[in-house]
Structures are given as C-alpha cells and as structure tokens.
C-alpha cells in the first residue's frame, strides 16, 4: 500500500486558510489604515510638519489594539477544533499524526500574523522613494517596526496556543492567555506590595526601580511609542515563542482528545489552577485594602475575602456552574496553609528584619530619603554609581540602621503616615547586595544618628546633583520665581554663572541638619539647561546666604525673592479644620470660613520666614498652610508652614478658636 508521506497536507492548510483567513484580511486592513493610508493623509495635508521617532507613532492606538488582539484571536480560531467535540473527534480520527496537525495549524498561524505585517512593510518601503518620505521615516525604521511587531505577535500567538492546550473551552483560552502573559509582572507587584506590608524594611521602592513592566510583554509594549526594541528583547521574545511552541507541541501529543468542553484539559492541573487563583486573589485582597485603607485589620480582611472570592470563582470555572457553595474542605485547608505562611512572614522566622550586614563587610552604601526622588535615579545602576564609599560615613549609616532595627518601629502601613521614607542599599564585599526601606520620623528618635550623615559631603552629593556637576559646563542659568514669571532673570556671562554656582555649592555644603530637614523656601528657583530640552530646577532656600549675597550683588535680589512689601495680604488655614483640600480652598474661596487673614507687614514678614519647601515630604510641614496674595494677582502662592517654626500669632489664633 502506498502512503502519502508528504510533509504537508495541502487540504488541511487550505481548510485553515478558508476558515481563519479573514483574520489576516482584517489585520491587513487595520494596518493599512494605521500606516500607509495615514501617512498618505498626512502627506497630502501640506501644512503639517511631522516626523516619527518610530512607525508605532502612526495611529499608534489602532496598531496597539491590533497587536494585542489579533495574535490571540488567531490562536483561538486556529485551534478551535480542539474545543469542539465533533471537530476534535473528526480531526483526530484522520490518518494524520497529531504533531503534523499541530504544526500545520501553527504554520498557518505564523503566516496569518506575518503576512499582513510583511505586506504593510513592503508597501511602506515602496512608498518611501515614491513619495519622497525620507523626512518622515527611513528603511531602517520600517524593518525595526516590522521586527518588533513580528516578535511581539509571535510571542502572543505561541502563548495563546500553549494556553489552548490546557483547556477545552475557547473563551477560557482567550482569557487565560492574557492572564498568563500578565502573570509574571502581576504576581511580582502583588508579592512586593504584600511583603511591603508584612515585612519591616522590605524595599518596595527598590523593586519598582527594577522596572516591573519588563516582566510582561503586555505591560512592556504599552509604551512602545518612543521606544527602542533592543536586540536582546527581540531575541528573548523569539526564544520564548520557540519555547512555548515546543511545549505546546509536546503537550498536544499528550492532550486527551475528549477534553473538549472541559475548562481544564488535564485533571492534574486542576488543583494548581484552583489554589493558584485563590492565592493570587488573596494577595490581591491584601493589595487592595492596603491601597485603600491601610489598617492591618482591613488587610487581613482583604486576605480572607480575596481568597474566598478566588476559591469560589475557580470552583465555578472548574465546575461550569455558579452553584458551588458546598465544598469548603479545600478552602479551610488553604486558609490554614496561608495562615501558616503569613505567620512565618509576620514573625520573621527567616530573620529578614534583623539582618543587617556587618560594618566591615560593607563596600559601599547608597542612602537616600526616597529612591524615587529624582528621575535619573530610576535605575539600579545609577544608584550604585552614587553610593557612598567613605568608611566613616558608612559606619554612621550602619549605626543608624542598627538603631532602626533595634527600635523595631514596625512596618505597618498605618504607622507610615507623615513619616519620611529612608532607603539603604548596601553593596557588600562578597558581591551581594542588601536593600532595606524604613519609614521614620526625622525629628524624633533618630535625629542624633541622622545628623552626621545628613551633614556629610557624601550624602549631600547624593541628594543635590548640582554638587557633582562642573560649574564650567554651564553657559547660562535662569533665576525665576513662582509668583511672577516676568520677573525671571537670565544670566549668560560665563564668569557670573560660575560664581553663582560656586556660591550655591558652598551654601549647600554648609547646610545644617536642621536646614536640610526643615528647609525654608523663598518661592524662587534656579533653572539650568541640562541636555536637550531638559531643565534642572533647584529651589533657592532661605539658608543659602552666599547665594543670596550674590543676588544682591547682581541687583536682582528684590525682584527674585518674595518680600513682605510685595504682598497685599496673606491667608493662613489649618488643614485639620478644612473639609476639603486646603489648596482647593485657597483657589476657590480665598480664605474659607476659618482662615486667618494677615495684613500686618511685620507678621507677613515673619510668615515668609517660616514657609516650608513645597516639594519636600509631609514630614516637614505643620498643619498650617499659608497663601500669599500678591498685589494685582488673583492666584495665591501657597506653602505649608514649617513644622517647628509656626509663628506664635498663628497658634494663638487657631488655639483660641
């Protein structure tokens, strides 16, 4: 007997194309609208000046929508036969091996995804010389766009196929595919935010530095607009696609054909699914109640409610009915296990909370109030470069850390309100790293330990980037203030700029602990050009005496720094007595019902000398806020009054009310 052993069954390919080819057509039409047609439209509109960083910018929303939907749709439709009993029986009764059937579908899937993209790329490539669009994009842009789109689509498609192997219902396949793709990033967010609540010192902010978006293609691709699809990412996407393909291929062979219609094809996966969903929902419950109301009792309630919902939903999916309220044994066991894990974490059996490196072990330490303070510190690499090397300072930081751990101030979210976040990142001599984060009150217990650190050159250099720049690099600076934009002064003489910066640096090096944690603002700031389009803004503090003298020398002190004579009146509000946001009250009703209106110049002057810096944490401000109303200006300049410096007439006034 002669057997047809050709690699392809032409009819099987044809059948796939006939039944799912429409998706490719829809995809192509969508792409045509978002790229070639859109470019043509922009081109005919001659007044438009435009150019793209990447082709993803051309109707990006449509592209994104298609990229997220189409590959999964293709996976669902191509492998739909597995989920329909008749079709599954029919296909698997044919004299074709399962692997061959699988590969046929997979191949068609790739074709359906890649062909529309390729066709679009070719059209774009032809349009480029034909319409002279070199100003808008380049050949390299096209293939970069093509490569990124293909890699992303293939990853989604292969993930969709893999997930399809585990279920017998197409809708479940679709939903689970997105959950599966989101899972790595999602679970990290949940675990980190829960440990943040449960473990004292857990450095959540540090983990946010590591860019969790990267862990899921769905979150990573969202900001594709101005974005380079690096070669390594491309390789990882393709590699993962290949792994998903191989796994799916292997599992398809094992998959029982009679699984069609079952939510999960393998009964071994059921408990994993059930308790996996329960666990995720437990973590989500904790996360939700931590975000909304951060009392520990509510968080525990969130754990119980979340896991209960998760358990029931998982059961509903598995049993395909909503009436699942009979079986509680599994849930009770789960709660017991989860409770045990919770106790291990809360009572810190692993000794995490007490683990501080030995002082001699420390090579360097990055210490800051908040690792997210500056934009350019949003990477773990940058904070290493800024780390303190001086052993004397390291010893002081180590001592502070010991003190914090000994006093065990407790990491519960309700204890964090109005506290400053302190972040420690040690680089040890053995190569490992230890990161911790605490919420403490800068004024109380730890002031003695903080003072020598805060006053050290090293810490100041972490905190104030201006200290590490070369003053010769700047050709100009602008001095402006918040109340009067027209009052800004540009300094363009190199020598003057240099002098100003030198004075400023010296002022900062001389700042005392008190001046750092309770900075008094002048409502004026300095702007430096930095790189292209970037401006680095630095507030001018009242404690900057040398710089103040320099301003006077230049004759611009009066127009720069807000003074009592500029102010017609000031209003002081106590935010404990305001029903809504104090800023709102200032803007809308000027002084509210409870405001203290100050017109006396002497008092205004006094108030001006107590205004806290606006962009400092809540730790430094009192409950009082002041709005300065300038002559001829409706909108006030608003600042909190510094905590330790509330003028007596203010406390008297509000105290007597």
């Amino acid at each position, binding site marked *: 007997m002669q057997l047809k052993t050709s690699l392809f069954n032409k009819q099987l390919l044809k059948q796939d194309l*006939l039944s799912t080819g429409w998706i490719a057509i829809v995809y192509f039409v969508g792409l045509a609208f978002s790229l070639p047609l859109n470019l043509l439209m922009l081109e005919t509109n001659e007044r438009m000046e435009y150019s793209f960083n990447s082709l993803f910018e051309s109707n990006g929303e449509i592209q994104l929508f298609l990229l997220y939907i189409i590959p999964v749709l293709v996976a669902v439709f191509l492998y739909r036969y597995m989920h329909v009993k008749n079709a599954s029986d029919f296909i698997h009764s044919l004299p074709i091996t399962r692997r061959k059937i699988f590969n046929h579908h997979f191949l068609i899937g790739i074709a359906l995804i890649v062909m529309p993209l390729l066709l679009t790329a070719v059209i774009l490539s032809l349009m480029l010389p034909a319409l002279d669009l070199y100003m808008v994009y380049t050949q390299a842009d096209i293939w970069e766009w093509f490569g990124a789109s293909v890699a992303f689509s293939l990853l989604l498609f292969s993930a969709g196929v893999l997930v399809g192997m585990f279920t017998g219902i197409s809708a479940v396949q679709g939903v689970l595919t997105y959950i599966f793709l989101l899972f790595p990033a999602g679970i990290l967010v949940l675990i980190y935010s829960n440990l943040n609540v449960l473990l004292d010192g857990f450095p959540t902010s540090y983990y946010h530095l590591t860019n969790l978006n990267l862990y899921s293609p769905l979150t990573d691709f969202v900001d594709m607009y101005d974005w380079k699809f690096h070669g390594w990412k491309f390789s990882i996407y393709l590699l993962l696609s290949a792994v998903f393909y191989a796994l799916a291929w292997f599992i398809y062979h094992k998959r029982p054909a009679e699984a069609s219609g079952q939510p999960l094809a393998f009964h071994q996966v059921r408990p994993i699914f059930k308790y996996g969903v329960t666990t995720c929902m437990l973590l989500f419950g904790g996360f939700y109640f931590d975000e909304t109301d951060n009392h520990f009792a509510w968080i525990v309630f969130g754990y119980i409610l979340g896991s209960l919902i998760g358990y029931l939903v998982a059961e509903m999916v598995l049993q395909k009915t909503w009436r699942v309220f009979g079986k509680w044994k599994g849930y009770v066991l789960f709660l017991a296990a989860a409770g045990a894990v919770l106790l291990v974490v809360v009572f810190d059996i692993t000794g995490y909370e007490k683990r501080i490196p030995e002082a001699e072990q420390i090579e360097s330490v990055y210490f800051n109030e908040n690792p997210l303070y500056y934009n350019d510190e949003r990477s773990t690499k940058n904070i290493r470069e800024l780390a303190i090397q001086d052993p004397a300072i390291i010893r002081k930081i180590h001592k502070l850390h010991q003190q914090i751990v000994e006093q065990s101030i407790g990491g519960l979210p309700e204890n964090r309100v109005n506290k400053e976040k302190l972040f420690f990142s040690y680089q040890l001599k053995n190569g490992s790293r230890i990161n911790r984060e605490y919420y403490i009150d800068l004024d109380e217990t730890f002031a003695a330990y903080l003072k020598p650190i805060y006053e050290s050159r090293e810490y100041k250099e972490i905190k104030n980037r201006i200290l590490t720049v070369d003053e010769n690099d700047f050709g100009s600076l602008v001095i402006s203030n918040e109340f009067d934009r027209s009052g800004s002064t540009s300094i363009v003489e190199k020598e003057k700029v240099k002098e100003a910066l030198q004075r400023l640096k010296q002022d900062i090096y001389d700042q005392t602990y008190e001046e750092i944690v309770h900075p008094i603002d002048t409502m004026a700031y300095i702007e430096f050009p930095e790189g292209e389009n970037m401006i680095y803004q630095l507030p001018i503090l009242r404690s900057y005496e040398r710089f103040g003298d320099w301003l006077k020398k230049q004759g611009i002190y009066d127009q720069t720094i807000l003074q009592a004579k500029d102010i017609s009146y000031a209003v002081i509000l106590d935010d404990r007595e305001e029903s809504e946001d104090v800023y709102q009250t200032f803007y809308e009703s000027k002084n509210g019902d409870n405001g203290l209106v100050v017109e006396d110049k002497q008092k205004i002057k006094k108030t001006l000398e107590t205004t806290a810096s606006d962009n400092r944490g809540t730790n430094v401000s009192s409950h009082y806020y002041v709005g300065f109303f300038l002559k001829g200006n409706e909108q006030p300049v608003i600042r909190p009054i510094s905590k330790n410096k509330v003028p007596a007439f203010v406390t008297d006034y509000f105290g007597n009310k």
Partner: protein
Amino acid sequence: MIVSNSISKKYEKSHVLQHVGLQVRKGSIYGLLGSNGAGKTTLMKIIAGIARPDDGEITIDGKGVFEDTEVKAKMFFLSDSLYFFSQYTIKQMADFFRDTYPNWNQERFFKLQQLFQLDMKKKISQFSKGMQRQVAFWLALSTMPEYLILDEPFDGLDAVIRKKIKNLLVQDVAEREMTIIISSHNLREIEDICDYIGILHQGKLLLEKDIDDLKSDIHKVQVAFREKPDTEVWDGLDILYKEKRGSVILAIVRGKEERIVSHLEQFHPVILDLLPLTLEEIFVYEMGDAGYAIENILV
C-alpha cells in the same frame, strides 16, 4: 482483526470502561449494543485511535492504532454527531479526503453519486440531517476502508435509505472483506446485518456472541402429550424457561436441535414443534437476571 485487551478508561472519577476485551474477526459485522452511557462511544473512539485507554491496549492486525497513520488510513470512523468543515461542499470535502486517505477511490466516489443522487456542488450544511448522513456514508465508503467504525449510524434515516445503506455495507463486507463495528442502543436496528453481538453495560462487556451460534443453540419448543408425562421428560435438557398453556407446554431449551427432538420423541408427544426465536427473546432468556438490566436495549 481487531483485538482489545482488557481496556479501561476513566473520566474524572467514573469508570467508563472496565477491562473490556473484545475480538472482531476480519470480514465480520460486529454489533455493539448498550444503553446510553454504557461506554460504546468511548470504546469506539479508542478503537478509532482518537482517545487513548488508561489501561490495556487495542490492536488492529497486530498493530496499535493511536498515532499510527498506516493503521488509521485503513479505517474510517463515523461519529454519531457528524462533522464537516463549515461552508464545504461535498466536492471540497471529497478533495480533502482524497488528499488524506491514501486508498481514496475516485471511481467509487462517482459511482456512489449515482446511488445517492446528491448535488456535489452544494454546501453540506444546506442538506437535511438525513442527507448529511448519506453524504457521510458516501465519503466514508469512497475512502475504501478496511475497518469501518460506525457510532449509532442509522439515527435520522428513513427505512428506505437505511436499507440502501445496509445493502452497501453488506456488499463491501462480502466483496472486500471489510470489517464493521456498529453501535446501537437498539438491537432490532442492527440484528439483520450483524454476525456478532457484544453487549456493553456500565462499562463492562456483558457478553459477546456469534449470532448463528446463538440461533442454533437455543430453541422454543411447543410440545403436548396425550397423557400427563413423567417429570423425567425434561431431565437431561437445558431448560431456560417453561410454561404450560392448556395442554401445550412451551419451553425454551438450550442445545442442538436434533438432540432436543430425539429426546422428546422418546415420550411420544402429540405435538412437537421447534419455533425460531427472535434475537430479542434469545437475549432475554440467555441473560436471565442480567437481562432486566439491559431490557431497554432490546425494545
């Protein structure tokens, strides 16, 4: 020859098949009987290589079926619920089978068209359910299977078509030694074409019999004596059932015809008739108590 060796299959926690062993000889028509949920479809899917048994094995001509394209190319499985690719015409479906089954016979396909008289260019979904089933048979027989697995094949067919298809099947069995396994929940539907009958009940094969053996082995005897006979009249005979209607005694007796006749003639009966039994009656008597459990198969 199809041999299943102690096949077991579980879905979740229920045992759908338990140690089912059956043998289907080449060129025979094997009727698989059982009520709904007895495990017929599962057994047939295992035989067709769609599902895999948890335990035991199935061989066709000594080879396993699952994933063996050579064996599956000689076989055709017709499910109780038909499946055709959506929007396909008969012609397109035939093209598909031609590329898939190596023994596809185009001549036969055209010849059968004369018999079924259906428009090849019409979409299959536009045909009535009965017509679709004819299309399925038409395509199945055109693949020239050596083994044809039919799951409840006659549902929705009228008597004329049913007869026509049965004739076709019998003809193929006679001409090319095709082997058929046919399942049904109704004995009468298939008794006229089967050589063998197997009864599946709650996942177990209750019995497996050659119909000719059954028929020649069991007899309905009507006998009357002038005088009341001695009790030893019945000694030495395998009586399954006996009742008296007036002077006539009606008995169901197992054994060879000649032996029963010669034994009874010793007692000089006035009347002695051996009547044929319907298959239905045979099963009821043969199975005794177990018969009640499967009664509904036999109506």
